[in-house]
């Protein structure tokens, strides 16, 4: 089925999004921005421009450019551009066409269906006009939904039973407050209120005024008079607003802002959050009345509201959030980007209509904690990482830790700690009958296969003999939240010490492996080493063995290094000797024997697949019924 996109057709900017694999993705314009300026223009040469390009040339072409057409939707007013009359529907259609084209570029497929949002206060004429605009643009408009409804959808509030929701939408130019009631997935608008003359640009103006006045009092120059300086101050205000949402004070430094009688002047100003809030306070205060009005019209008290949702760039400011919290007596929701919230909600609605959501909301479990097996030295070696979606299968090849080892124990672990003993053991079993061989040689493939019901089949297979052993573990994905929380916290708490412990073990394992390969080399190449080298090696080997009986990691490390060096020296001598004799002999490198843990073989390739999936049929039927 083709995709349906969700469009937030805005007054100054429009946004679009769609659902991919169950997740909303915001569509970028050809210009690379996540929004489309709602501006349409015809140039002198008759060329039509929409979006960013139209916005850039707006001031040079006032007679050929139209902005904020949304405010005229549903009226009979015509817009005259370069001698031709256009209805608001037509102008909006140009914007929608641009979105359609860019979305098609972005997605690489044809888009015909859309869900478009409108303000909750739009009447039937205005809604019809929006629908018409969509049709003119070539869209099959699947649904027109309210902007606050879309915002609530973006937060999934339709799924939480009967709720009363307030949406506080404070954008660049307008404030809209909507109170809604949702039940059984249906939204009902209880009241709307707002201020069409209040927005973020008022705040920017107030802040620019403050900075310009400060500079003027010091240097006698008004930075607002020059477009060049005004531009820089505006940009500084934007940065300062963002900075002050996380810090208490910021420096506004604009070097070389102005030249006063041949002398360059810099703007240097400290702006505190308190000062910022003092400046924008009157504007934020003005948003209170519409909120109270909306509550009163809905005949509700702030306590009756279950959720407050923030929409619009201005709501990123802490002071605005605090104000909303004060009015509605609760912390507002703001996890979804307030600029993209409405488009995302529209996309979710579109996803439900197209089946993109239903289809992907086959709820697949994830592994709450990492699943590992215990390897040499009590280390937990992960096979399936935490937060992996199931069903899944992972395999790794391991080997033996000692010569002639005929049995391995598979200890299946769950948890984030690097050491086996600190994790929860889910089960253990033995694989016997491994043919006697030097350590590191046998290949034992361990597979973790978790089915859709969270039942894990752990198998170990000797790739040499084909012998296999397995166990079933139930409930590998089912853990109580508190248990998961506890285990994760524990892992975090012990992170440092665990790391040290693991390092210690690793050093031991390396040393152990080196002892083994040295012994082997001494045995095999006893005639090749010079007596000096042999003595050195034996001494270093003895030292390391001794160190290994103790618990001093530093000493083990030191002795490992010493043995490595002695080994290198001895093997270099052998190779030189060989070279002198013009004889090519197969060498015995010093780095042999580290494969006690085997090499992970990447992902499974040709692995048997005998999953048991009980209750699958029932599940499938449930899906179909939905």
């Amino acid at each position, binding site marked *: 089925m083709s995709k349906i996109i969700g469009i937030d057709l805005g007054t100054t900017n429009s946004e679009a999004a769609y659902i991919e694999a169950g997740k909303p993705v915001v569509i970028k314009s050809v210009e690379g921005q996540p929004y489309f300026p709602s501006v349409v223009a015809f140039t002198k040469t008759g060329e039509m421009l929409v979006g960013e390009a139209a916005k850039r040339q707006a*001031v040079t072409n006032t007679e050929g450019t139209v902005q904020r057409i949304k405010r005229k939707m549903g009226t009979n007013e015509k817009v005259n551009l370069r001698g031709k009359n256009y209805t608001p529907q037509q102008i909006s259609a140009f914007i929608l066409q641009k979105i359609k084209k860019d979305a098609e570029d972005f997605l690489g497929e044809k888009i015909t269906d859309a869900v478009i949002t409108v303000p909750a206060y739009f009447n039937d004429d205005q809604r019809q006009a929006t629908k018409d605009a969509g049709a003119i643009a070539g869209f099959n408009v699947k649904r027109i939904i309210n902007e606050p409804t879309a915002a609530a959808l973006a937060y999934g509030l339709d799924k939480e039973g009967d709720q009363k929701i307030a949406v506080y939408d404070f954008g660049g130019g307008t404030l809209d407050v909507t109170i809604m009631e949702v039940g059984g997935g249906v939204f009902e608008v209880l009241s709307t209120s707002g201020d069409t003359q209040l927005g973020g640009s008022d705040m920017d103006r107030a802040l620019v005024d403050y900075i310009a006045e400060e500079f003027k009092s010091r240097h006698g120059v008004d930075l607002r008079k020059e477009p060049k300086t005004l531009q820089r101050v505006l940009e500084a205000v934007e940065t300062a607003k963002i900075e002050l949402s996380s810090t208490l004070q910021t420096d506004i430094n604009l070097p070389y802002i102005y030249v006063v009688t041949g002398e360059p002047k810099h703007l240097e100003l400290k702006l505190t959050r308190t000062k910022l809030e003092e400046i924008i306070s009157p504007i934020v205060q003005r948003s209170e009345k519409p909120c109270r009005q909306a509550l009163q019209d809905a005949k509700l008290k702030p306590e009756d509201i279950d959720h407050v949702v923030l929409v619009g760039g201005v709501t990123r400011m802490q002071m605005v959030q605090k104000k909303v919290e004060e009015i509605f007596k609760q912390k507002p929701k703001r996890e979804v980007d307030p600029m993209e919230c409405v488009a995302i909600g529209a996309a979710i609605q579109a996803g439900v209509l197209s089946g993109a959501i239903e289809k992907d909301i086959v709820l*697949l479990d994830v592994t709450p904690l990492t699943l590992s097996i215990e390897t040499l030295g009590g280390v937990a070696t992960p096979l399936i990482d935490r937060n992996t*979606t199931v069903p899944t299968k992972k395999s790794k090849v391991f080997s033996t830790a000692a010569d002639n080892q005929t049995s391995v124990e598979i200890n299946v672990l769950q948890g984030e700690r690097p050491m086996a003993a600190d994790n929860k053991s889910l089960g253990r079993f033995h694989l016997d009958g491994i043919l006697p061989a030097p350590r590191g040689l046998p290949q034992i493939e361990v597979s973790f296969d978790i089915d859709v019901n969270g039942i894990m089949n752990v198998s170990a297979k000797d790739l040499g003999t084909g012998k296999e052993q397995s166990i079933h573990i139930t409930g590998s994905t089912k853990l109580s939240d508190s248990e998961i929380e506890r285990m994760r916290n524990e892992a975090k708490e012990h992170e440092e010490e665990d790391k040290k412990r693991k390092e210690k073990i690793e050093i031991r394992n390396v040393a152990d492996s080196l002892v083994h390969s040295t012994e082997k080399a001494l045995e095999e190449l006893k005639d090749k080493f010079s007596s000096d080298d042999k003595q050195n090696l034996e001494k270093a080997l003895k030292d390391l063995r001794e160190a290994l009986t103790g618990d001093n990691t530093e000493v083990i490390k030191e002795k490992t290094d010493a043995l490595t060096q002695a080994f290198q020296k001895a093997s270099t001598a052998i190779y030189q000797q060989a070279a002198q004799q013009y004889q090519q002999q197969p060498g015995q490198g010093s780095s042999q024997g580290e494969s006690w843990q085997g090499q992970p073989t990447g992902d499974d390739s040709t692995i048997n697949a005998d999953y048991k999936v009980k209750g699958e049929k029932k599940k499938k039927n449930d899906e179909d019924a939905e």
Partner: protein
Amino acid sequence: MPTKKPTNTKKNIQESAQHAITKLEEENTQLQKELMEKNDKYLRTLADFQNYQKRMEKELQAQKEDIKKKYLLELLDLTELLKKSYEDPNPKSGLKLLLENLEKFLEKEGITYIDCKGKPFNYQLHNAVSTLEQSDCVDGTILDEIKKGYLLGEKLLRPAHVIVAKKKP
């Protein structure tokens, strides 16, 4: 004679019906098995895809970090040198080299300056901040540059912010 036939036929019908049922049952079992296998395969593919998405997200994050590191390191070097020149009583010659290095770096990254003063306004490269009415000018010519614009390769990195001439009627 004819009396016997019907019973025979009845038995035959029963037998063939039983046969058909058995066959259907077998088919049904087979189909159920196949459906189960297909469903499992589908769910595994879906899970694989979700895991792939998670991995890509992580990788993307790592990539972003790498790019950030690269530019931050450049910035650190620049900061150190700027500090030195700030302490230098005659910083001009040092600053000159510093600037040259910086420009070379930008050039290497593919950044070019959009020369715009005196040229006709072009919405693909320029952003008009305001217009200025003049009697002696070519309409639509750029009079002044408020903020420099740059291209990154062929693409627009930032439009030049400009003041455009408007001919007095």
